[in-house]
């Protein structure tokens, strides 16, 4: 039953993300309640970006991550922050001296500093995310234990240049080849790129990466990620140019298509471009505007999205983000949907974050139902590199009047 459910869900997700043709298959093969929970089961990409740290006055992803769009390997500063300022037990630990440029030893370093300086300028990280999932739906439930992530990530940064790459395992029933979901685990490199940034803030990168758009919520199943094609495996092969101008950041991306399409399914390959502008109104308030355009492929119609987001931290332990997007094409039928996501995060105790996230996606024509979600999450960071997350999703498919509840327990190790 579990395997069947997972297979069906994979198919459902694929259908949702790739248009009307697949939706026909979906409608013929799965029951309506499944449509309501799509996007929850499948593996997350690499380590989470955490927009909630706006409360700590971090408005830019690159304060803690190598990637300008967040997520993935932490920089030495990000590692240090996860040690000294975020974990419950790290508050009084010894930190590298002020003025240090790197910290290859100590609790915050790779494998707790076991390798010391042996790696030279190379920074390594391991991502592991064993998880337990339980979905309740009308008439039953299904549960599953699986490893969401198992990746090795490396980065080198020198004189403005950054080289970054990951290798890992995509779980069973997840990888898609020529339109078919593979039943076995597969090799994957979610990101690999090279970039350069001048001291004035003008930069570029080329390779495989997730495009900059809106807010990269850590939960990949957030409606603003799932329904705007910013989910797992939605990285592109392309070039990104960015410019930091005072409190503003502009990022523009050009791509011949999604990376997985370029590698494994040329029928879905199509030009795409995205732009994102961020204005830090204050160190605790940020405004973001984004636009995305995807040209038609052999199988997908032309699509685009435009949206805005606003985040602010009314207190040193509270962050509130709201993003609203118009998906100006959903299906070949020419539908249009709105996606609105709010995420309110509160640091209840040092290292213990509580999140509340109401989400909405409006109906966009036949096959695209109105969905509403209430998500609750508890994130506990007891010690450096360890994060225990418990999420609960209450999803309601307004069109089919079906409600599901999902419980997800994750142990996230980012060694």
């Amino acid at each position, binding site marked *: 039953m579990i395997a069947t459910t997972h297979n069906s869900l994979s198919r459902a997700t694929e259908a949702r993300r790739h248009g009307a043709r697949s939706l026909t298959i979906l409608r013929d093969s799965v029951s309506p309640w499944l449509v309501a929970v799509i996007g929850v089961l499948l593996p997350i990409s690499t380590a989470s970006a955490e927009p909630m740290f706006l409360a700590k006055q971090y408005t830019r992803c690159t304060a803690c991550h190598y990637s300008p769009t967040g997520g993935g390997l932490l920089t030495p500063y990000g590692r*240090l922050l996860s040690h000294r300022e975020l974990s419950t037990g790290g508050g009084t630990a010894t930190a590298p001296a002020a003025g240090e440029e790197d910290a290859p030893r100590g609790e915050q370093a790779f494998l707790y500093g076991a390798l010391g300086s042996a790696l030279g300028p190379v920074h390594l990280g391991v991502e592991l995310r064993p998880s337990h999932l339980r979905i309740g739906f009308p008439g039953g439930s299904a549960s599953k234990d699986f490893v969401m992530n198992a990746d090795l990530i490396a980065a080198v940064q020198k004189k403005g240049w950054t080289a970054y790459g990951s290798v890992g395992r995509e779980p069973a029933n997840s990888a898609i080849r020529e339109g078919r979901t593979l039943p076995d685990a597969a090799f994957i490199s979610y990101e690999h790129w090279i970039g350069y940034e001048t001291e004035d803030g003008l930069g570029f990168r080329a390779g495989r990466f997730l495009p900059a758009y809106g807010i990269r919520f850590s939960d990949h199943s957030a409606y603003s990620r799932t329904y705007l094609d910013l989910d797992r495996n939605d990285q592109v092969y392309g070039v990104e140019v960015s410019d930091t101008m005072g409190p503003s950041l502009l990022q523009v991306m050009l791509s011949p298509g999604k990376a997985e399409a370029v590698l494994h399914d040329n029928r879905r390959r199509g030009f795409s471009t995205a732009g994102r502008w961020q204005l830090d109104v204050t160190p605790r308030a940020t405004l973001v505007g984004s636009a995305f355009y995807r040209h038609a492929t052999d199988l997908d119609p032309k699509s685009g999205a435009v949206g805005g987001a606003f985040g602010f931290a009314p207190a040193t332990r509270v962050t509130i983000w709201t993003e609203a997007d118009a998906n100006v094409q959903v299906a070949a039928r020419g539908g249009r949907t709105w996606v609105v996501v709010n995420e309110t995060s509160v640091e209840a105790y040092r290292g213990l974050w509580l999140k509340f996230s109401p989400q909405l996606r409006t109906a966009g024509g036949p096959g695209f139902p109105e969905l509403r979600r209430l998500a609750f999450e508890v994130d506990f960071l007891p010690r450096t590199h360890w994060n225990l997350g418990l999420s609960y999703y209450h999803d309601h498919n307004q069109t089919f009047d079906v409600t599901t509840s999902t419980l997800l327990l994750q142990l996230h190790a980012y060694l």
Partner: protein
Amino acid sequence: MTFLLLRATEAQRHRAKKFLLCASVSLWLVSAIAGFALVAAAGTPWLPTQGRVRVTCPLTIGGSFEAKTTALRGSLTASASHPSYDGSLVVDLRTIDTGIRLRNDHLREKYLEVDKAPGYDTATLSEIDLKGLSPDAPKGKGTFSGSFMLHGTRKTVGGPVEIREAGAGFLVKASFPVNLSDYNIPVPRYLGLGVKNTVQVEVTFLAAPEQASQLRSLRFVGQATATR
């Protein structure tokens, strides 16, 4: 009829004389009081209350963070001749908070070196001179210059200032840039992240006459006692 008219004119003249005398006395009194008030204002120390200092520190990667404190003290005395002020405004640097403890430690110990020598634990703005504001009523928007002492180094700073009436005092908001290298402060860098050389200081306070401030303090003490 003529007699009546003459009587009326005489009465009116008398009233007019009386009115002129009263008006002259009143004007003299008003002038005297106003003059006294101006002299008193020029000599009255103004104390900063409800002070707030925010230092915006831009990061090398973009974005910025704020360091802030409310520990602003001092006294300013208006000069009678033009809108300049004797006295100083003093910020306690040991209380500056960036929201992150490690960052606070580095800021105070490594960069501001608050324990290095006497005076390193404060930043002082003195010899304040206002420009573009009326000498008689320093209200509205203008600019200021002053002598800023930080990290054992004194430099002249300046920037926009806005002064508004607020109750018995004035609400003052001023800002000015500070180049860290001018004060022999090393540019902060840590694990690949850095602060740019120029930070922006914003000072906001309510300038209240000394007596009003003392009364407010007494009232505060009274309220605190009552609460206990």
